[in-house]
């Protein structure tokens, strides 16, 4: 396998109700990534598009539609693994280069969530089994609430302890110029916000957002030619578990442990809790960041809330978690949000994260995303 590095990245603002069309958002992110890389579109060999269900943008075959932002007359493909798509877009771009197929790849992820009426929640109805689950009229928050309550029950975790994730991430987002939901809030604000599906309150959930993210990956010699501060992709992992979520222990994300083991083996990480300097775990819900820190084996099962309380995951802590502000603070245009997490780690390792830059020196960073029916996980390990 060839060594693969990152030389540029770009984000749009993450906002609700963006005037720009999905194609325009993808174009903005892609041109910013090319600018940072110092390349032009004509230099790019292949394009990877990442986008979650077509239904969010209301356009079928969204890969081809988004390909207008750089993919025309090029080797272009789309990846889709639900919420795990954003990191999968970077992984897919990685293997285009690692395999020897391409020299320079542009990865673009976009989502425009706010056009759906009456609410993006209604689009999610079509992800359930049409016969055995959909007749109960579930919405997405139901299943996350079920998973959160199972996690709380199994390990005796309190809502207050979980709310600290939302407090931390929204506070971190104050440093992020792209963020939609940055705020200085307290645990009480979370607990007193509207109850959506007990035990989930409104501030336990990331907002509905529109946005795009893009990244440029290249071979080792090109990376060395274009930058003095290279960031390398050294491990990738992705796995699926089964979709029969009512017949599975929901308290622990086994799907993620499997993906993380694959990525760590490739990156030669033996002690994730000691060797990872900064992490962006997927946090569409606050409990999910804790769940994922455990699945990534950075915390032991049921112990992430304790480490959070001790400040381990703060921006100046031992293992800063979601220093970007995460989905809770930056926003959640689904596929773009996962690539945003990957880009945040890239900027941390490059030392260009600005006010988001964590206090301690960083060498190894991990980004992760998760999706579909509680079962798809994608993990990427980067080093400078």
């Amino acid at each position: 396998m060839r060594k693969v590095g990152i030389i540029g990245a770009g984000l749009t603002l993450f906002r609700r109700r963006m005037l720009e069309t999905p194609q325009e958002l993808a174009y903005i992110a892609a041109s910013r990534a090319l600018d940072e890389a110092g390349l032009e579109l004509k230099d790019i060999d292949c394009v990877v598009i990442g986008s979650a269900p077509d239904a969010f943008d209301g356009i079928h075959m969204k890969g081809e539609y988004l390909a207008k932002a750089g993919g025309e007359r090029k080797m272009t493909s789309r990846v889709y693994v639900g919420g795990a798509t954003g990191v999968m877009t970077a992984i897919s771009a990685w293997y285009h280069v690692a395999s020897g197929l391409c020299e320079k790849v542009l990865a673009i992820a976009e989502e425009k969530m706010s056009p759906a009426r009456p609410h993006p929640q209604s689009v999610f109805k079509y992800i359930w089994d049409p016969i055995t689950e959909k007749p109960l009229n579930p919405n997405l928050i139901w299943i996350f609430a079920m998973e959160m309550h199972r996690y709380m029950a199994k390990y005796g975790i309190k809502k207050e302890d979980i709310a600290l994730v939302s407090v931390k991430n929204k506070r971190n987002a104050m440093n992020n110029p792209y963020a939609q939901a940055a705020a200085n809030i307290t645990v009480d604000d979370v607990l007193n916000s509207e109850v959506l599906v007990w035990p989930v309150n409104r501030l336990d959930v990331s907002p509905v957002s529109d946005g795009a993210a893009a990244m440029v990956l290249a071979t080792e010699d090109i990376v060395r030619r274009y930058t003095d501060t290279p960031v390398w992709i050294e491990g990738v992992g992705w796995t699926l578990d089964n979709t029969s979520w009512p017949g599975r222990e929901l308290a622990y994300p086994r799907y993620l442990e499997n993906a993380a083991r694959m990525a760590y083996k490739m990156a030669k990480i033996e002690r994730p809790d000691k060797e990872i300097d900064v992490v962006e775990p997927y946090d569409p819900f606050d409990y999910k960041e804790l769940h994922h820190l455990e699945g990534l084996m950075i915390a032991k099962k049921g112990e992430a809330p304790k480490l959070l309380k001790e400040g381990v995951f703060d921006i100046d802590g031992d293992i800063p978690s979601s220093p970007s502000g995460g989905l809770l603070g930056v926003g959640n245009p689904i596929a773009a949000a996962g690539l945003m997490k990957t880009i945040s780690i890239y900027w941390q390792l490059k030392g260009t994260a600005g006010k988001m830059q964590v206090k301690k020196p960083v060498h190894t960073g991990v980004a992760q995303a998760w999706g579909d029916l509680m079962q798809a996980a994608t993990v990427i390990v980067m080093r400078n």
Partner: protein
Amino acid sequence: METPLKKEELKEPITISYKPYAKYEYSAGQSISRYLEGLKEGKIIGRKCNKCGRVYVPPKMYCEDCFKPTDEWVEVKDEGIVETAVASFISWTRERLEEPGIVGTIRLFPSKENDYVFPGVFHRICCSYDEVRNMSIIGKRVKAVWRSERKGDIDDIECFKVI
């Protein structure tokens, strides 16, 4: 370059609304057809893999783990343990509900507490909001409340109730 719109600005533009004409006639397949027939008879039918012993509810014609056909139809109990339960104050279109809908997952018998996978269903649970809030419902033994008129769908079970 990017321009977020205010909520009131969304009232100005022309809005196009339409209902897609998209109806589906799903094939339930052999396993779910038998499952639905079972529900009509007031039974929960699963499918067992004799190699690993896993019982699939809803049934599956092949074992995902052993990657071979499952071996036999089994009737599981309409009783089990509440794994998790939640109280929804929003509808699937995100409208506010006054009375919460209570749903959860149930690990059906036969199964053991430490099984990672088990015969399980997602359904309504007949209990109070307080029992969800104080988590006392989680871990309780429940039984299906069957409707008297059944037509072969998951709604033939009204809910699961503590016994």
